[in-house]
């Protein structure tokens, strides 16, 4: 390998003084050795990093949040990729969370809606709110402000820190959203009033503590250098009094020097404006939480109106049906169309020439709630052939009447839906005038897919039932708790199958219940217990309304291999046997 040797020589040149040992090693072992060394080193690196990686994460996290910043794009990408590649996995993970979250959100939204509806009704319709509106209008203040006055116990609206000597405002703070006089003027005027009162009444103590205007109280606390005043709306609470004293002491302690040498420069007191903001105390009146009566009342009224109208509707349709039945019951009359509008019931009837007159019939009906108007078409009702055209229009298909001596059969062929076919068979016109309804070469429209759907559903249910096992306690016919629940689910499915027979064209021929025992115990005993287990399941099915004639039970004893878990050996299972009888009925 001359090339390689020259390469190592090249390398040798690059390093300053390659010692002989190293040259010998590279001559002997060449590049392979280097690669092995590199691999070993890389492997060692991996091991070393693997050992400390989580501790390193912890330590770095404590230092700063750079790790989270670095990792978050990686995590975002991997979540994106995961959602893209396996959406069903994410769906499975979030599925249990989404249901409760949606339910909670919906119920919250509903209760919010009810409360806001109630609030709206209470505040716009109640007598109290009307009185409040009137009072607010008389006082010339916005309704919102008046409501605030009525609902708060107290609120410190403005706070003034005033230089005692000059009456100059040092700092002030006020609640947002309420309009005030210029605080500079207010504080000067307040000082003037205090001075005036002090002089006029010769009060040495120079402390006018409280000024009251309507429901606004001006609470004044005087210190050696500064005066603190709170404009309080509502009740003068002891908390406010305590706060004003404490705050004034705090300000004097912190700003003693600045206050002593105050020359009108307020900038030095700016830091204390935060304290003044905090002094804007507010306490709301405790309002009893009453149920949302107004909303409940409104909903009740709505419900009763709806139920009143639906009751009337129900009553009316009952009466209409009664009238139609009465007319149909009258010899020589056949109702073919009915329409109710504007308190008039219009009936289109086929009338035999020999029947009583329509006027007499209406009189005999004696209906008071609405007027019955009979539009008649004369027809010989002993010729049922005349009805086929009308019935075709109504139900579809191709209909012909077949006369066999006295009786007439109705022959149905062409395209008709299964639903219309059964409706046709039950039509009063058909029942009264035709002996039999026969079908021939029928094609079913639309409903085919619906039927196919229910057939698939039926098959799926049968599969699910046939796959189910019910396990028993040791040496007993007692079902295990979990299996009892499963059995009840299965009963629901069985009932559904029974109901679906008509739609699907399947007929359940047998529901077989087989019982098994575990391999412990004698053959006879096992046969007996397995048979008892099957019988137990059979009896539960029958108790729950599965037709007795369908259900059979057998006990097989112990049949399983020894390798099967004994817990699984003590079991029963249900098998549904059914036939597809569609062709038998329709392809006759």
């Amino acid at each position, binding site marked *: 390998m001359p090339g390689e040797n020259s390469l190592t020589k090249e390398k040798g040149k690059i390093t300053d003084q390659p010692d002989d040992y190293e040259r010998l090693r590279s001559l002997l072992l060449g590049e392979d050795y280097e690669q092995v060394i590199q691999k070993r080193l890389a492997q060692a690196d991996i091991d070393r990093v693997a050992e400390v990686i989580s501790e390193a994460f912890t330590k770095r996290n404590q230092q700063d949040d750079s790790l989270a910043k670095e990792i978050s794009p990686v995590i975002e990408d991997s979540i994106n990729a995961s959602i893209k590649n396996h959406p069903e996995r994410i769906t499975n993970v979030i599925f249990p969370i989404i249901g409760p979250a949606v339910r909670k959100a919906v119920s919250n939204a509903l209760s919010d809606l009810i409360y806001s509806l109630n609030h709206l009704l209470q505040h716009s319709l109640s007598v109290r709110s009307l009185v409040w509106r009137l009072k607010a209008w008389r006082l010339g203040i916005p309704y919102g402000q008046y409501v605030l006055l009525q609902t708060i116990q107290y609120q410190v609206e403005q706070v003034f820190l005033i230089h005692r000597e000059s009456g*100059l405002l040092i700092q002030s703070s006020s609640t947002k959203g309420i309009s005030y006089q210029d605080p500079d003027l207010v504080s*000067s005027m307040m000082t003037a009033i205090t*001075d005036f009162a002090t002089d006029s009444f010769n009060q040495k103590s120079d402390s006018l503590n409280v000024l009251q205007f309507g429901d606004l109280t001006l609470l004044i606390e005087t210190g050696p250098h500064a005066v603190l005043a709170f404009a309080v709306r509502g009740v003068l609470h002891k908390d406010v009094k305590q706060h004003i004293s404490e705050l004034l002491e705090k300000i004097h302690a912190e700003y003693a020097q600045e206050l002593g040498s105050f020359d009108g420069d307020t900038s030095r007191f700016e830091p204390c404006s935060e304290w003044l903001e905090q002094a804007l105390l507010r306490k709301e009146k405790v309002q009893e939480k009453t149920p949302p009566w107004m909303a409940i009342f409104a909903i009740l009224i709505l419900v009763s109106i709806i139920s009143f109208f639906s009751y009337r509707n129900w009553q009316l349709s009952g009466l209409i049906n009664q009238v139609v039945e009465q007319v149909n019951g009258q010899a020589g009359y056949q109702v073919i169309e009915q329409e109710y509008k504007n308190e008039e019931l219009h009936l289109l009837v086929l009338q035999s020439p020999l029947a009583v007159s329509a006027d007499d019939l209406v009189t005999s009906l004696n209906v008071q709630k609405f007027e019955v108007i009979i539009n008649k078409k004369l027809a010989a009702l002993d010729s049922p052939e005349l009805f086929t055209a009308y019935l075709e229009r109504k139900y579809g298909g191709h209909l012909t009447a077949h006369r066999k001596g006295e009786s007439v059969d109705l022959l149905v062929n062409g395209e008709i839906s299964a639903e219309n076919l059964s409706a046709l068979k039950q039509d009063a016109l058909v029942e009264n005038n035709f002996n039999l309804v026969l079908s021939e070469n029928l094609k079913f429209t639309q409903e085919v897919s619906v039927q196919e759907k229910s057939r698939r559903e039926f098959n799926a249910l049968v599969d699910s039932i046939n796959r189910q096992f019910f396990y028993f306690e040791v040496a007993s016919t007692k079902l295990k708790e979990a299996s009892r629940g499963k059995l009840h689910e299965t009963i629901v499915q069985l009932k559904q199958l029974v109901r679906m027979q008509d739609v699907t064209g399947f007929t359940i021929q047998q529901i077989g219940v087989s019982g098994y025992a575990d391999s412990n115990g004698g053959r006879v005993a096992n046969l007996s217990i397995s048979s008892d287990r099957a019988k137990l399941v059979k009896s539960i099915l029958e108790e729950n309304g599965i037709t007795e004639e369908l259900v059979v039970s057998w006990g097989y004893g112990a049949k399983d291999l020894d390798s099967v878990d004994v817990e699984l050996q003590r079991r029963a299972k249900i098998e549904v046997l059914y036939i597809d009888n569609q062709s038998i009925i329709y392809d006759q």
Partner: protein
Amino acid sequence: MINKKICMVGAFAVGKTSLVKQFVDSLFSEKYHTTIGVKIDKKVIKHSDKTTQLMIWDIEGVDAFTNLNSSYLRGASGILLVLDGTRSQSLESAKQIKGLIKSVLGNIPILLIINKADLIESWQFGLDDAKVLEISQDNTFITSAKTDQNVEQAFVRIAELMTA
């Protein structure tokens, strides 16, 4: 910004309130309203390189029945002593008031304002007579609240004196 309290003092009906009204709102009315107690206004003025907010205490005028309530003067940094040139009585009152100011506030800037310059033909005393008050010419202003003569200048002057 520096806040300063100044007081308008003088005999009744010399035009203290009118001067303040003219200075703050640039308005003048011939109607006379007597001030009871004190009326307070404010105005921010800029003079040389400073900004000062003046809290102007317009104190009720002094007459035979009303003395100056000294508690209104407390904490004032400057005084505008207002005279009515058409009434020599206002000069007499001013002498008393100045004495009171001296005793209550000590040496603080006092400006002498001789008002009603628009009626100068019916003045009963002049600048020379006002020298008894011992206020320098620099701090004496002849003003008219009606024509706005010298009003702004007087207030700027007191602001300068207070913040010097």
